[in-house]
């Protein structure tokens, strides 16, 4: 007797409990599984394939082998510029936002008057819609009548033409990002609050100084959180786009032409989708490699409680 001749309820009744569970499990997961195929696995494979093709907006894709990659690596003078810009941004913004976010969290984790008020003050900027925030900072960075240069003026400094000078535009973009460190700060704060108090008490009885307690208890126990934020921060910063797109359009002199902005231009302004796909694949490998390196390094600096769940 084949299954198909059974009525659904009879078929269901004949299934063992384990099989029923398996069936239901996959049934519940099915939207995600379909999405995984359509919106994640297919695009990753497709972007790899498209990288070997010439594909204009209306034409058919034609296979050109490694030509795109050869062009990117040998003929594309802006590729290195854009890679350099991006690495500059990552190298500056990831450590700065980590340190500032962490220090703010440590400061807020003390017994404070108006702790919630402080927390709100630091957190709120991070929820301002990005385009609004960038426009606001373009205004704040205004070379003649901007508030930032006015503040510098008060300090007796001559404020630069932030977004108009190649050497200042990137730092300006980094500063825009730092305004949003509040999100990371909240994560650190949650981590700090989950450190058991008795550890500090025991250390104090043993006569450990505050500095020592900070270095030997707080820092080690926070490394998993720092690690998580480092990974997310690296992946996010490599994809910096909106700030540069809205504030500078990549200028001046390509100084804020970040990788994704460059890719966007090829893909959606020049409609060279094959070339843009090759660029995307290179970025993917780069970020993946860096993530793996950070993961590998984690065993030497990330502290996991022994016997814990990981």
């Amino acid at each position, binding site marked *: 007797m084949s299954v198909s001749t059974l009525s659904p309820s009879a078929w269901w009744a004949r299934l063992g409990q384990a099989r029923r569970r398996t069936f239901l499990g996959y049934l519940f*997961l099915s939207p995600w599984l379909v999405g995984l195929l359509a919106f994640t696995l297919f695009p990753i494979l497709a972007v790899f394939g498209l990288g070997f093709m010439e594909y204009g907006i209306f034409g058919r894709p034609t296979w050109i082998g490694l030509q795109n990659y050869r062009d990117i690596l040998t003929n594309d003078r802006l590729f290195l510029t854009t890679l350099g810009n991006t690495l500059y941004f990552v190298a500056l913004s990831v450590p700065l936002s980590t340190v500032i976010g962490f220090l703010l969290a440590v400061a807020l984790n003390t017994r404070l008057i108006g702790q919630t008020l402080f927390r709100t003050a630091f957190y709120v900027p991070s929820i301002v819609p990005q385009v609004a925030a960038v426009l*606001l900072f373009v205004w704040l960075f205004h070379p003649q009548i901007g508030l930032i240069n006015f503040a510098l003026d008060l300090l007796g400094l001559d404020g630069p033409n932030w977004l108009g000078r190649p050497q200042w535009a990137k730092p300006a973009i980094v500063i825009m990002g730092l305004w949003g460190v509040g999100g990371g700060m909240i994560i650190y704060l949650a981590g700090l609050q989950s450190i058991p108090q008795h550890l500090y008490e025991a250390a104090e009885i043993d006569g450990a100084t505050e500095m020592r*307690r900070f270095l030997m208890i707080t820092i080690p126990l926070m490394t998993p959180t720092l690690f998580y934020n480092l990974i997310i921060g690296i992946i996010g910063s490599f994809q910096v786009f909106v700030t540069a797109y809205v504030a500078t359009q990549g200028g001046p002199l390509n100084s804020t032409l970040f990788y994704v902005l460059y890719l966007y231009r090829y893909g959606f302004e020049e409609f060279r989708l094959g070339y843009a796909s090759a660029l995307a694949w290179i970025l993917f490998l780069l970020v993946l490699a860096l993530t793996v390196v950070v993961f590998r390094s984690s065993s030497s600096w990330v502290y996991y409680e022994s016997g814990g769940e990981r």
Partner: protein
Amino acid sequence: MRVAESVSPLARDGPSWRYRRSTRQVLRMSAVHLALVATGFLFLLPLLWMVSTSLKSLTQQAAWPPEWIPQPFVWRNYPDAAAFLPLARYTLNSLTITVLFVIGTLLSCPLIAYAFARIRFPGRDFLFIVLIATIMLPGVVRLIPTYLMFRQLGFLNTYLPMVLPAFFGSPLFIFLLRQYFRTFPEELADAARMDGASEIGILYRIFMPMSGPALAVITIFAVQSQWNDFVDPLIYLNKERMRTLAVGLYYFRAYQDTTNWGQMMAAATMMTAPILILFALFQRYFIQGVALTGMKG
């Protein structure tokens, strides 16, 4: 490292019998407060400046030194900016996308999260690792193929590219909900099963009603992500009247001949206000949600 030293959690309650130390502590805590007030002020200043500028006349915007109090208050910047955008239309567009996205999220994510949390079946743990990996996948990698796919399907200039994926679950939201479901005792589901409840019944009658905070968190995240999203509406919507607020705000800058910062800041304020109001109402969930994302699996 002075800051770090001064704020170790044990600084809280020093033994009071050591007089010298407690004076030092008072001084130190005052210093921490002072430093925090200064930095907190620095963080809020841009927002105040945004609102202040939004009420200024063209001439006062250019005043040097800058003036904080608008003189006179140019309320007209708001209706003028709204008319220029057009704000009503763009708000409606952003709202449509946001609401549909939230509906999709709330339909799909609990179901998927429940399977990951409380149904035992072979392959589950492996798929969960896949889920985590997709959270970390750089989104830009899928930009072009996804665009081509939606174009092929005839979805350009519709809201489907933004909305449809929500119905297939968002990895981060699934992860958060799954973590939340896992905090319920195992016996809860088992007992209901003994009583003959179906898995769907357990999810909707027991788990969902108990998950208000977690559902609030993912709803807020979903609203935020769609209200703020820039890249997807930028590439999928070419028709001017279909634009979202975020994209409209960007073009606001690109189209103005003389930059009227007052109007632009008025537009920025109008786009920011709903998120800030949402935050004021549901502050707890914002903070909890962000804190949860930092949790390890």
